[in-house]
């Protein structure tokens, strides 16, 4: 028997089995998300049944009810906190990453590892002083304060990610720009920024994901003025009455922006999750 025939015989059924297995696993993992999505389109009487209801006429009633129930202010707060903090993160992290890669400051490595270590600090360890600080400055229950915290929360990821994109720039381009006598600022604006724009977009998406999903700071530091979408969901903690369809509709709306952002950014997700350590 030649190796070629042995290989086809061995590989082919294997890859079909692998494919099937992978699909089964993926559907099992995805099922809770799918179920959330589906249940949001049910009537309450169809949502909590035993056995589960698989076939039904979809309705937008729950989504309408949620939007009618003051959901919009929470949505706007979430948008302000996540988009605002993400913009600020990019503005702060890009120059910082530059100073830690292409034009390194002294002891750049210490700064780099300082950033990453702050991302590892448990939020509960600093919540009380932050609370008191916000209280004394009149920034409690304030979306600006929350945005600043999210900015600091995402800075390490952004610095590491952007730095990794900067280091991937072809050296020749940078040197050519310098030889041509491009001024410092012009070099950054005209040469570097356009080249790392996709990287910045990816970094922005990753930061948006973490800010949008954040719950602990939001629930500790906001109440009536600045609560975000995850705080809205705490209204569904108790299990009284029929509300599963409505919860699913709310959860779908809450989760959808980040699911989409994550799907778009999935190529760079691992770089963000590993704080830039793995590409």
């Amino acid at each position: 028997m030649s190796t070629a025939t042995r290989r086809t015989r061995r590989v082919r059924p294997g890859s079909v089995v692998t494919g099937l297995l992978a699909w089964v696993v993926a559907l099992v993992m995805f099922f809770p998300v799918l179920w959330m999505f589906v249940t949001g389109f049910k009537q309450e009487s169809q949502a909590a049944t035993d056995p589960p209801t698989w076939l039904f006429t979809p309705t937008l009633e729950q989504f309408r009810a949620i939007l009618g129930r003051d959901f919009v202010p929470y949505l706007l707060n979430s948008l302000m906190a996540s988009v605002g903090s993400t913009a600020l993160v990019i503005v702060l992290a890009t120059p910082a990453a530059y100073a830690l890669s292409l034009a390194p400051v002294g002891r750049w490595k210490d700064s780099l590892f300082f950033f990453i270590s702050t991302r590892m600090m448990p939020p509960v360890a600093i919540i009380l002083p932050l609370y008191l600080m916000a209280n004394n400055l009149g920034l409690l229950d304030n979306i600006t304060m929350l945005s600043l915290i999210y900015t600091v929360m995402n800075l390490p990821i952004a610095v590491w990610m952007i730095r990794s994109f900067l280091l991937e720039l072809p050296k020749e381009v940078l040197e050519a720009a310098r030889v041509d006598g491009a001024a410092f600022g012009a070099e950054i604006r005209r040469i570097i920024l356009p080249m790392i724009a996709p990287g910045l977009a990816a970094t922005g998406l990753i930061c948006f994901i973490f800010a949008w999903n954040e719950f602990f700071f939001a629930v500790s530091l906001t109440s009536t003025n600045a609560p975000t979408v995850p705080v809205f969901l705490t209204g569904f903690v108790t299990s009284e009455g029929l509300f599963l369809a409505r919860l699913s509709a709310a959860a779908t709306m809450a989760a959808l922006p980040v699911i989409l952002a994550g799907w778009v950014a999935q190529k760079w997700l691992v770089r963000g999750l590993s704080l830039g350590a793995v590409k």
Partner: protein
Amino acid sequence: MSTSLAAAPAATSRRRAPEPPKRTAAERWKRRGPLLPALLITILLTQLPLLGTLYYSLRSQNLLRPETNGFAGLSNYATVLGDEYFRAAVVNTLVLTASTVVLSMALGIAFAVLLDKKFLGRGVVRTLLITPFLVMPAAAALLWKHAMFNPLFGMLNWLLSVFGVDKIDWVSQFPMPSIVLMLTWQWTPFMMLIVLAGLQSQSTEILEAARVDGAGAWATFRRITLPHLRRFIELAILLGSIFVVQTFDPIFLITQGGPGQATTNLPFLIYQTTFRAFEVGEAAAAGVIVVVGTIVIATFALRVISSLFQEET
């Protein structure tokens, strides 16, 4: 400046141009300029509060009873360490973190190995598999609580009823396994993505050579792939542990730490002590203890990141 750089272990990298021996102070500050805003805001909102926590941990302070405020020395630490609730929370945190990290890592490796193969619709499968990590944790927690774990119409019991298992009240009867199950679902994609990145960074030449030499699939995986993956797995486990220790959302939303203290972990205990009992001093002392524990794990994590970092630069 250059001497301190040289003193750092293997700090020199090929990518960096050799530093000019002497720069004026003005030049150095000009270089530091772009870094400073990010550095300052980070220090202001992380290091300053951490000092605040250290300060409060040494004080007897209750926000509701200001008359008792004063210096307390290490008595808060003694109270916290002697508190059976605190010790139960430490145990719960360890059990929760270890189970979640081990289970999600085992599944993550298995899924990554599957995804490393070629098959129809691999991109879609990958997209579906990362989704649990993207779902807002608060939404996921409530979804699991009401749609999956509910004893009467939860999907979990419906699934088990196919195998003739009676209705189980998951959150009351098996609080910790329920939380671990939900967290494993959430963290498996994280582990999977890092392991997959490791798998895909393997040199195909070496794998090809092994195949030509007649090594079986399992032998190749054990002898070549696993050693290569080691640092990726270490990194995923360490980062995963650091983040899973901080678990708050599902505890707050699914069990409120109960029944009794069964699922009260350290973040939730500290939250309760701070915002429900207003025992600022004790909460701060517990917070400092958590930071110390985290530093221990983080030291290892940073070492692994540092080694990946050396290799890449």
